[in-house]
């Protein structure tokens, strides 16, 4: 979470400076700001990976049997989840606070489904961050650039799709499909498979 906040800080700084420089035209710079934010987030995810890897090695050397008590997979999951949580919370908590107060949604001509779509989008984003965390760490561990590139590309795609709001069919639908695919990919990366699911369901 801390790393995500750092990335957000850097991205905001960038955006702020660029807004000031370009003279008050902030609507046009939003894509740039968003893209910068995405790239910085991925950068911070990488920094997080490096730090956790070091901690993992440290724990492994300290433990009795040479293996650390927390596997890298678990760390990947936790880090992805925390990224997702803090990102989701930051995106949605002001909306939640406002929704508790008086008002009418969409009174100025905006979509009346603002709150519910925000909720769904946030949920998708949290899940996506978790999946990306797992895939990212695994790709870094095995040094495969394909995974890295796809994670970054997926993030950019998801963020870009939200630019299509309030055309919700175009943004919500693809984002959920993306979430599902990424989820399946993360599941297979983490070692799961159809057999595992069957075994789990039959309570063996």
């Amino acid at each position, binding site marked *: *979470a801390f790393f995500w906040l750092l990335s957000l800080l850097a*991205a905001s*700084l960038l955006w702020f400076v660029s807004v000031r420089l370009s003279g008050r035209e902030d609507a046009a710079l*939003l894509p740039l700001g968003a893209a910068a*934010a*995405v790239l910085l987030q991925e950068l911070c995810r990488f920094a997080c990976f490096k730090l956790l890897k070091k901690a993992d090695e440290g724990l492994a050397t300290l433990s009795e049997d040479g293996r650390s008590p927390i596997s890298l997979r678990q760390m990947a999951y936790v880090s992805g989840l925390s990224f997702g949580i803090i990102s989701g919370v*930051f*995106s949605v908590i002001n909306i939640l606070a406002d929704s508790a107060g008086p008002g009418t949604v969409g009174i100025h001509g905006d979509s009346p489904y*603002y709150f519910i779509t925000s909720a769904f989008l946030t949920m998708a984003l949290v899940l996506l961050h978790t999946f990306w965390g797992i895939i990212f760490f695994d790709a870094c561990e095995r040094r495969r650039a394909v995974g890295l590139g796809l994670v970054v590309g997926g993030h950019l795609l998801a*963020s870009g799709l939200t630019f299509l709001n309030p055309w919700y069919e175009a943004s919500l639908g693809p984002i959920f499909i993306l979430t599902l695919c990424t989820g399946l990919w993360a599941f297979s990366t983490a070692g799961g498979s159809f057999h595992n699911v069957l075994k789990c369901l039959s309570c063996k």
Partner: protein
Amino acid sequence: MITFMNNSDSEEEPCNERTSLMSAESPPVPSYQDGLQASEAGEAQAHRKRRAGSSRGPNNITGGEMSGSGIPVRESALENEEEELTLKYGAKHVIMLFVPVTLCMIVVVATIKSVRFYTEKNGQLIYTPFSEDTPSVGQRLLNSVLNTIIMISVIIVMTVFLVLLYKYRCYKFIHGWLILSSLMLLFLFTYIYLGEVLKTYNVAMDYPTLFIVIWNFGAVGMICIHWKGPLQLQQAYLIMISALMALVFIKYLPEWSAWVILGAISIYDLMAVLCPKGPLRMLVETAQERNEPIFPALIYSSAMMWTVGMAKPDTAARGPSQQTWDAAEDGREHLQSPSHAESQMSETRSPVPTRSVTSLEELEEEERGVKLGLGDFIFYSVLVGKAAATASGDWNTTLACFVAILIGLCLTLLLLAVFKKALPALPISITFGLIFYFSTDNLVRPFMDTLASHQLYI
């Protein structure tokens, strides 16, 4: 360090608590013994409590010393395991400290957001006489700096006073002082708080019921904090006291002064704990010379030691009452932070019986805990509460400060595990918190607001 002066008169007397985050590892056998002997002086404990302010130093130093002397004695084979245990326990301690800090902050933020009383400006403390309603920015800045200087000098004076009292063994005075201050906190501030909460939710309450409730609350609190009580209850009372104190600070400190004071307090904490001539450090050293535990009163401790089972093989000198206190003193990692914790918990735990023999099994039985000064709780909560109160109603800032403070606490605990001596808990957390507050409020907020208004996600 912030020293809390508890006076029975006006509620506007600030209670400064010096919080020292003391980390004392549960020392290996030899140091364990020292620790035990140190905790023997029951009276000293009472006196120590008074010194809450200085408790930081002594506590930290004691802890550090104990662990320091213990480590070399151990064999290298055990040392590695000890280190590993340290880290494992270290992680557990981090969680054990996260929960109370989080609870305190939640209480403060919830109150700030719902009860309007604490965000209205109704005057200032006498310790911050300069008003901030001046027209020019420069004047306002100057006033806040002057306020800070006055506040910090008050704290320094109180701390030095406490150290002197401790040095010259005026234990009764300190004891009475601490009791008066906790009385005021438990009764007066609770009364005001309850009154405001009831006003906000428009709940009718008659005076007899209120009297009975507050009387029970206060009496149980006094007993728990100054004498014996269940651990959870003591912790709960300490958290509540810290939250009340933080709310008072948030209400009565003008805005810019509050931020400057927070910064200055962390610098002061750093100096008071680490400099050789710092008052806290002197306090710790004096306490160590006399083999007395340092103010358990103003410290939040997260675990107790159970040594009842080991009492039998030992000589008659050891008694069951030894358990809690010893555990508190020895088995804990103390983080020193400059604040007087009103936790007279450990002190009230038990008189420390003389323990002549310590066995390894005993060490394994004990549950190590971490000690954090109450002042630390208070200032963390002040930071988060101020962020909640003055950040244009934005929750992001509050959250960012919260995460920053927790990460700072983590780092401090890590340093504690590395250095194994009393450390100030305020500087890192407050620095992170301040950085995140100002940057989130000014930089991130417009960005996120614009994104949210177009329903864009990053």
